């Protein structure tokens, strides 16, 4: 499989704090990569740096074979990298139709299929702030899916969802990879979701990668169990 994302020796600082330090990660075309680690370990910062929300202090990011380290978030989005957010990020005072049309127009695509797949087609004329929490999370994901991104970064997509909604989300992500060939990289605290759907898992701790590999191997890694999984493992 082709490598679509190459991250080398990435460092991100917040003031004097090194949120990421010497992180190197490779993502292959069509894989689902799970990112896990304790709170503050650097998972979301990693997503922010890859997506262009936060510029790194040093290191290099290559996306689809091209250097994007200093490119803006907009440029990366137009090149096929999309993301959702830990806190729901939608347009509260626009209807579902208005915001999806706005996003779709940028990519010349039809949002109908996404809305159907995410169960939002019945809410087209609703203002986003009138939707329930689960629907708002799905709208956030729908906005990220417009334009058929080649790499999708998801920051805790199952946060606040019910068990059934989390499982449905996992199914949807599997279908996305299978049908559209999208590569997915997701941060998630729900271990059932992460180990259930990921092809490989990267474990962060204090801004560094401490383990990486197939879910089974990562799960039994003593360093990972010590740092994060604990009794869950």
């Amino acid at each position, binding site marked *: 499989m082709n490598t679509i994302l190459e991250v080398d020796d990435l460092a991100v600082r917040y003031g004097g704090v090194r949120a990421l330090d010497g992180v190197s990660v490779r993502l292959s075309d069509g894989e689902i990569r799970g990112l896990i680690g304790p709170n503050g370990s650097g998972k979301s910062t990693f997503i922010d740096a890859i*997506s262009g*929300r936060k510029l790194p202090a040093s290191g290099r990011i290559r996306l689809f074979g091209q250097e994007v380290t200093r490119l*803006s*978030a*907009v440029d990366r*989005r*137009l090149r096929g990298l*999309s*993301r959702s*957010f830990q806190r729901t*990020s*939608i*347009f*509260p*005072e*626009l*209807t579902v139709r*208005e*915001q999806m*049309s*706005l*996003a779709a*127009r*940028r*990519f010349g695509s039809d949002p109908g299929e996404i809305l159907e797949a995410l169960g939002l087609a019945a809410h087209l*004329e*609703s*203002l986003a702030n*009138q939707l329930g929490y689960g629907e708002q999370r799905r709208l956030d994901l729908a*906005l*990220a899916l*417009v*334009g058929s991104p080649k790499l999708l970064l998801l920051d805790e997509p199952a946060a606040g969802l019910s068990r059934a909604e989390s499982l449905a989300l996992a199914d949807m992500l599997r279908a996305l990879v299978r049908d559209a060939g999208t590569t997915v990289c997701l941060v998630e605290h729900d271990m059932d979701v992460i180990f259930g759907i990921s092809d490989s898992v990267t474990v962060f701790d204090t801004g560094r990668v401490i383990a990486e590999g197939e879910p089974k191997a990562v799960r039994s890694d003593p360093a990972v169990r010590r740092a994060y999984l604990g009794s869950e493992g």
Partner: protein
Amino acid sequence: MVLESSLPLPTRQASDSSRSRAARWLVWSVLAVVVTVLAPTLCSARVIAVSSQALMFGFLAMGTGFIHKHSGLLSFGHAVWFGLAGYSVGILATFSGLPIELAIAIGLVLVVALAALVAMVIMRSPGIAFSMLTLAINVAVFELFNRMRGATGGADGFSIALPETIFGVPTTSLQSPQTMFVIMGITTIVTVGALTLFERSHLGQLTLAIRENPERARFIGYDIYWPRVIVFVISAALAAIGGLLFTLYTGFVSPEVLGFMTSGQAMIMAMVGGTAAAWGPVAGALMFFLVRDRVTFLGDHWMLPLGSALIVVMAVWPTGLVGAADFVSRRIRGAARRLHG
């Protein structure tokens, strides 16, 4: 969600069908045109004169309201564009010998170009920094025009040498309150319609989206800087149109029109009227001028009742007249629906 302003932003209800919306708009537009044409024969000359001026300043208020609605930003300096339009046309018409029509065209282009340059710098600044910058620019421009006696007449201002006709219309007619009221009324109706169409356009939706959540707008692939610049330029152009018409109407320009007090008053008009709909600031301007006309006995203290009214509006009905009208209209429509089963 990132909101730039702590003042109430427009809120929306789920949209009606576009056909019923268009029909409603058509009815209101026709009604507004009829009222505009009939008002000079039905109202006293004083009310018409005050309302004419209110509609001119209504453009300034529309500019202030437009930028608030489409970027969430509060401008405390839009009188600059109102006054600069008057000064540039006045200076060009009086001192350059250009035909007035050309002076108007060049004057407006100059003001819009300057607004674009300013926007390219200050639209990068977030909320409070933006507001402070607009205030600082306003104070600086006021001081500049107040002190340049040679070109601007300083604090006294200057009378503009207007020809007998402007665009074929006799200048005396333009300076008659009755004629100007009709011109201003029609211009306002057309402008409100244009701004409403803008809101429904792709760019209008994008600017609203950027106001709502600039980060998400970037992550659906949109640059957020240029749409913000365009919003500023449109808002400045609205203020400039008002300033131009006010200058032609009075044949006079002075630093007062670009003072920050004028900007503050425009902000009051916009907030009292409400910025959720384009007509809100115009309604606010009409209310402002008509109330002010009723409290002239207070002399220099005429701002006291207006300030008090503003406090009441912001506390009781922060979405202004637009919010109140929307509330009443929804109640009426709800009652009508219940009546029809």
